[in-house]
């Protein structure tokens, strides 16, 4: 509460001094010390060489308060015995929770489930995305409108998509199950088995994010210069050869970026799983994010979830670093 007051005081001091300053060159010597140092401070803060720092300071402060500091706090907590649901003060635990988490077979199982979903979903996204990009590679009437239609899924909310697909998978009246029953005679109970449930999640996630891969691949496809295609036509190159030597090199970089980006994002998969299967049947589709959620907010094992968080954090930092490395390399090529 003190700062604004001194501020106002120095501002008013400034005002009262202005006419004198224009008359009297030696004004500086008779200014009250407080006002002068205040003004110096502001001048120092807003001097040209500090402009960059001043511009980014609010953002960095906010990120520190809302992201970095909380993360440091939970990092601290991971070394203590602490449950958010009990009033007992934290006790020092050392590396106990890290040891516990790293040797816990359940954690490895959840990581395995996550890896299965990531692998299947990202693979499916790449294939479907690539195929759709090839479809939109050429110019045709209503191309833009149809493109919008296909791109919509990735703008939808995870919760909405989860709800849709839960309705489609509903065994008796879900449209997918009914279609299945029409052809195979028996109802589709996708959510009853482990692999069925995993596919249920993978289909929903891949449906939502294939357009993302398509968007990136398309950016590569439209950047292929025309003269290369003309040269290939002159050489009577086969479709496959043209694809391999002309098209693919322009897409390769973006395909890699899409792969990394989608891997990072799918690794975090939570909402869709939470809505469609809630980790079930049993715990067979519990991804690592859902597991952390349960440990933290259902069992309130705060320290354990914090230690687990830090292991995930490490994975994401490595992947993000890799992603940015390839982004920069591509920017240099362009």
């Amino acid at each position, binding site marked *: 509460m003190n700062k604004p007051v001194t501020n106002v005081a120095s501002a008013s001091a400034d005002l009262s001094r202005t006419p004198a300053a224009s008359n009297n060159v030696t004004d500086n010597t008779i200014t009250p010390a407080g006002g002068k140092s205040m003004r110096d401070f502001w001048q120092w803060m807003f001097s040209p060489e500090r402009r*960059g720092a001043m511009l980014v300071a609010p953002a960095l402060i906010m990120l520190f308060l*809302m992201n970095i500091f909380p993360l440091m706090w939970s990092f601290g907590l991971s070394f203590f015995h602490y449950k*958010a649901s009990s009033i007992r003060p934290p006790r020092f635990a050392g590396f106990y929770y890290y040891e516990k988490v790293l040797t816990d077979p359940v954690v490895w199982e959840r990581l395995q489930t996550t890896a299965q979903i990531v692998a299947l979903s990202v693979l499916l996204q790449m294939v479907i995305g690539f195929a759709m990009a090839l479809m939109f590679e050429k110019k045709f009437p209503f191309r833009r409108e149809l493109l919008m239609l296909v791109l*919509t899924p990735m703008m939808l909310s995870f*919760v909405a998509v989860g709800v849709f697909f839960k309705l489609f998978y509903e065994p008796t009246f879900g449209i997918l199950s009914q279609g299945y029953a029409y052809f195979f005679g028996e109802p589709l109970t996708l959510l009853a088995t482990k692999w069925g449930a995993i596919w249920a999640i993978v289909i929903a996630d891949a*449906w939502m994010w294939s357009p993302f891969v398509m968007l990136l691949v398309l950016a590569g496809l439209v950047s292929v210069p025309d003269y290369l295609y003309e040269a290939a036509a002159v050489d009577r190159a086969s479709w496959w050869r043209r694809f391999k030597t002309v098209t693919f090199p322009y897409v390769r970089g973006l395909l890699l970026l899409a792969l990394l980006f989608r891997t990072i994002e799918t690794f975090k998969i939570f909402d869709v799983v939470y*809505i469609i299967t809630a980790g079930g049947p049993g715990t067979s589709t519990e991804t690592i*994010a859902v597991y952390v*959620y349960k440990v933290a907010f259902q069992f309130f094992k705060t320290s354990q979830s914090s230690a687990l968080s830090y292991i995930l954090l490490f994975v*994401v930092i490595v992947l993000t670093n890799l992603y940015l490395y390839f982004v920069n390399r591509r920017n240099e090529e362009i």
Partner: protein
Amino acid sequence: MFGKRKERGLREAGWGQTLFAGAIGLIYFFPVLWIIMTAFKTRTDALATPPKFIFTPTLDNFVSVFWRVSQQGNEAISTGFGLYFFNSVFVAASGVLLALIIGTLAAYGFSRYPLKGNDTYLFVILTTRMLPPIIVIIPIFLMFRLTGMSGSYYGVILLYAAFNLPFSIWMMKSFFDELSGDVEDAARLDGSSERGVFFRICLPQLKAGLAATAVFALILTWNEFLFALLLTGSDTRTVPVAMARTIGGELGVDWGLLAAIITLFLIPVFGVTYLLQNHLLRGVTFGTIKK
């Protein structure tokens, strides 16, 4: 990325391609279409076997999103969804506005006055966005509980501002980087102040970019679930959370009602996707890939 300048280079394909892409596009879009159709069905039509493609549309579901008839009398009781829609709009708009102001300044700084270790700052900023939200939410949940901020508007708004900040910074930086510095230098030579350069030279050129960033951030916030699930109270609940709770209803799921909620929830998303078409690539990759 598929603006007019680019499309001129595309090779031509005729109406046959339109037909083919149209068929695939419709199949791909079918899940959304089916939900919208379900929203207009009566309860029996929604659960019909075999599924009904032709039916008499009704608006009952949309009405019962907001009001239901009380069991004693005939007066309508609010279901609270009016409030939840208001919350979603209010919280997203405030959070994004805050993030955009702070983020644009920071992006300008990062782009024009690089600090020592500029790339490191930018990397850390992007990483905070790439982290699984569940990691960030555990300590924030404790922090909010300690300061009594959980369940309040300003807590959620502050969190959403921080959530959108990395995105705003990266997006706006990518736009600032594309501006030619010549105009700014010319303005400086003509005696414009630094503030003038920012407000009168840079920002007017970036109106479209600013709008794209804002709208994208709005959608990301509008769709956000986990933070809202853990940090909103009954008065500040947003639509995704209310939607998830509707699934867990004890009287069995009313799919028509749920479909109506989703349809209402998606209307702004459709509009926005259409408006953003030229900036989608940049937006979905957080400004890391421009073209």
